[in-house]
């Protein structure tokens, strides 16, 4: 729908000109990736096994940083109300926010993956890794958009969103980390069942979030 793209474009413009959170997300992800080295003491043998985990922790936390901010800012500034006054249904607003959030996370990944490759010499630029990254981003953005809307109008919003998101995103974390680890270890073919799990997760939860978004956006 035309309006969904209008929403996405608006979000992109606002973010690139306003620089609210995307930069912070990227830097945060990079710092986490570097800190990985000290936390896990990655010698060559271990690196393949635990590198993927660290990478995804970076994405998860950076993602949450951005997801939390994006809707909160709209709410605080009052522009969210201006949006709800337009004759669009909640699902459309969800789609717009969701797609822009996916794009933001993918941008963070696009910067992080080459850096990760550079620092740890792990094949993080393999197409399969990229695929898993995007699939993971979609799932994260799906639930994340829903919960950031929910948390934005609550007290203690910064802590509420991770609290809600983490338990529910566990299949996502398991799937992406396992799949990426397998790819790093050279067993890429075995990663496909995980891909299926992730794809199913994405479809189910993006759809569900779309449906229930109405409950969150009211008054």
């Amino acid at each position, binding site marked *: 729908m035309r309006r969904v793209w209008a929403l996405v474009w608006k979000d992109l413009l606002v973010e690139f000109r306003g620089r609210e959170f995307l930069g912070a997300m990227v830097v945060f992800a990079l710092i986490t990736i570097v800190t990985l080295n000290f936390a896990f003491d990655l010698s060559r043998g271990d690196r393949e096994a635990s590198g993927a985990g660290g990478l995804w922790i970076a994405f998860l936390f950076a993602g949450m940083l951005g997801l939390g901010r994006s809707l909160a800012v709209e709410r605080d500034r009052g522009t969210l109300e201006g949006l709800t006054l337009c004759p669009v249904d909640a699902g459309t607003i969800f789609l717009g926010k969701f797609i822009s959030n996916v794009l933001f996370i993918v941008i963070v990944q696009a910067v992080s993956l080459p850096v990760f490759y550079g620092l740890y010499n792990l094949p993080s630029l393999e197409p399969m890794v990229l695929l898993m990254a995007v699939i993971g981003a979609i799932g994260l953005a799906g639930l994340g958009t*829903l919960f950031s809307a929910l948390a934005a109008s609550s007290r203690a919003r910064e802590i509420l969103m991770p609290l809600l998101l983490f338990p529910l995103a566990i*299949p996502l974390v398991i799937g992406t980390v396992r799949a990426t680890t397998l790819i790093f270890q050279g067993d890429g073919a075995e990663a496909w069942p995980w891909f299926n799990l992730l794809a199913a997760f994405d479809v189910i939860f993006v759809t569900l979030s779309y449906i229930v978004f109405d409950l*969150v956006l009211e008054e």
Partner: protein
Amino acid sequence: MMQRNSTNRSDMLVMGLGLLTVAVLTLGIFMAFVYAPSDLAQGNAQRIFYVHVPMAWLAYLAMAVVFVGSVGYMWKRSARMDRLARSSAELGFLFTTLVLITGSLWGRPIWNAWWQWEARLTTTLILWFIFIGYFMVRAYAGDRERGARYAAVLGIIGAIDVPIIHQSVTWWRTLHPEPIVLDTGGPNLPDSMLATLLVCLAGFTLLYAYLMVQKTRIETVRDALAERELTALFAPESETLDRRPVAPVSRNVSGAAED
């Protein structure tokens, strides 16, 4: 008159349910500690199984009821559905906590560890966090109606996620072969153990039903009280408005001059 009769009747039914629950549970506990034989491998520690498994069943049953209530609330915005959901969530949280505790207690003598990352326990642990999230969302939402809506969202998403979480954790574990833990008997359960288990399951399910009835009743009263308090705010103020006469309205056609 009519109402009192039907209230009496439903009270009697509930009491009947309560008595039945006590009866079946007592039987179950007796069977668990006396009737059922000791497990060969695990000894008497295994008897926790007769409490642990029904608790787990209840935890998930409660979550399913939360799901139903949440969907019902989303659809109809009915307070009744919300009461159903939040009552079941409280009970579900209680049972989930008990599952984790009994699981640890059972596991300790057998594994020499308080915890194992096997699929069922792990999923239950996550379920525990989902219940916490359910209550936090209600508490932090600011007003009751919004809290109910947000909780419904969590109820729906959480319930659907549980099987997916279970599946992904199972796959995760099968790729890391672990010692087989928590042998709940599988297909080789001797009849006496099976019977005990079934009686305990029945007893605890009745317990859940009884507690749900009582809990939803309490919540109904709570809701009614809250409504009443708020409606009272709308009552006309006791002091009458100061109705002193104001300067009579003059048919002022030169009002425009004031602009």
